[in-house]
């Protein structure tokens, strides 16, 4: 499963899941376009880690909801590394507001970043992915594309939209040999504690204390970490996954079934 020498654009790569994906792909020799909008320090840290892993990257500041900025970002990345093979749409805005608490500006913001941003990046990357022979679009969504959040109505709406954007892209871009898939992470620990994975606890070792900490919600013994999503991205970016398109793969430690 070689990704050596490929070029990936990862949106929202300064923090959390985007950082985790960047590191996993860098380990496999992928050169990374590290997109960020506000998390400049985080993006610099991602670049350092990508280089420490023996790969290379470039910082790309852009608001994914701004078409001109997105197009410039794609062009800059392609000029730097000679093309784009993989787009990982990952950036998301979240307000943590219920139905009655959203105002119109908040609605517009979350819709434009989470849904229009995925569309704009997919569209703007297309000329490069066509050239790539086996281009890949991987949309990081959420279990909340199916299950409501009960804490952020518009966030869930955008994830419902991403599900259909993935399916439409999959059938429209099939003629270019590009596959398009969705990953639906469950709760993922992000931030400083997420650097080192905790081992999965075997079922016979799960103790009461562990259950109290949420073991019943996460039967495999832990919540997600960014590299869990990164490994799945690496698979969906590989040649071995070429028959998989328009799919949504849940990565949630079984939590949505509980």
């Amino acid at each position, binding site marked *: 499963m070689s990704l050596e020498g490929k070029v990936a654009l990862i949106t929202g790569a300064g923090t959390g899941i985007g950082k985790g994906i960047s590191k996993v792909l860098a380990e496999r020799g992928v050169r990374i376009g590290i997109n960020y909008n506000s998390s400049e320090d985080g993006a610099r840290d991602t670049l350092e880690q990508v280089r420490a892993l023996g790969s290379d990257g470039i910082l790309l500041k852009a608001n994914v909801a701004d078409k001109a900025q997105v197009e410039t970002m794609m062009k800059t990345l392609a000029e730097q590394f000679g093309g784009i093979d993989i787009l990982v749409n990952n950036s998301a805005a979240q307000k943590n507001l219920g139905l009655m608490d959203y105002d119109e500006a908040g609605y517009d913001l979350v819709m434009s970043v989470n849904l229009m941003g995925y569309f704009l990046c997919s569209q703007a990357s297309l000329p490069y992915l066509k050239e790539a022979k086996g281009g890949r679009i991987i949309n990081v969504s959420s279990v909340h594309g199916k299950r409501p959040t009960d804490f952020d109505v518009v966030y869930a709406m955008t994830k419902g939209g991403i599900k259909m954007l993935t399916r439409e892209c999959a059938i429209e871009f*099939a003629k270019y040999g590009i596959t398009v898939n969705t990953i639906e992470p469950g709760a993922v620990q992000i931030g400083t504690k997420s650097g080192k994975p905790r081992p999965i606890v075997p079922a016979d070792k799960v103790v009461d204390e562990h259950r109290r900490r949420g073991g019943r919600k996460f039967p495999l013994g832990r919540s997600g970490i960014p590299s869990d999503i990164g490994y799945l991205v690496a698979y969906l970016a590989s040649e071995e996954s070429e028959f998989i398109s328009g799919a949504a793969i849940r990565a949630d430690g079984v939590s949505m079934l509980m």
Partner: protein
Amino acid sequence: MLKLKDRVAFISDADHPSGRAIAKKLADEGARLVLNSRSNGASIAGDVASYEKAGAEVLVTSSALVTTEAVVSVLGECVAKFSRVDMLIHNHNVVTKMDIEHCDEETFKRALDENTKTAFLCTQIFGKQMGDIGGGQVVYVSSIHDEKPTGSAFLYSIAKGAVKMLCREAALDLGRRDVRVNLIELGPVEGDNERFASEISDLYLDYQTRIPSTHLGTYEDVANLVWFLVIDESRFLNGADIRMDGGFTLHYMDHKMRKLTDAARG
């Protein structure tokens, strides 16, 4: 006994054939109607006259419903006339033919505003009012294309994908205030083969034959389901998406499609 006697229904796109069929059904069942009309009532004048002749009270509004201010204002008109709204029927279904590769930002925003933002704002503002008066119903007339891609109108399908999640969120939020929220995933009706004609997908090729019975759906079918979803007999339905497509989307590679009979061909 009329099941909807004096209940007040708001229909978001009353000029659309689905809106006209729903209005007729609800009026027949005794409801008072707020018909939000794109033509300011012109294209439904005959319908309104017939409802009024039969004794129904009707208010015609004309709001684009894409800003908070506009929806608050139209709710104000409803409350001024009827003092309340008991049910919201959101049936905005605007299909924009456009591929992803060539879609511009303005077209994207307009399609999402029309199909999704109207649903969000109406749910929020009418939903609050219904919660305040102790209950109500929201029904979205949506589409099988909240699951099935079109290959020709991606803006429509992503908009409807978002509305599906709005339905589920609102079912939790408003459900705690005795407002039930449900969604109809409507399958093929006459003309969908043109509305969704695609160079990529053969979904609508001989579309009648993909329905096991070879009968297309009608807006009267929609109206009957809307009626069921707003009466008390459906009280345990909340957050449901009901696929009403005659079995259209159950095919895989069309192995056993029926041949069209002359009768089915019309």
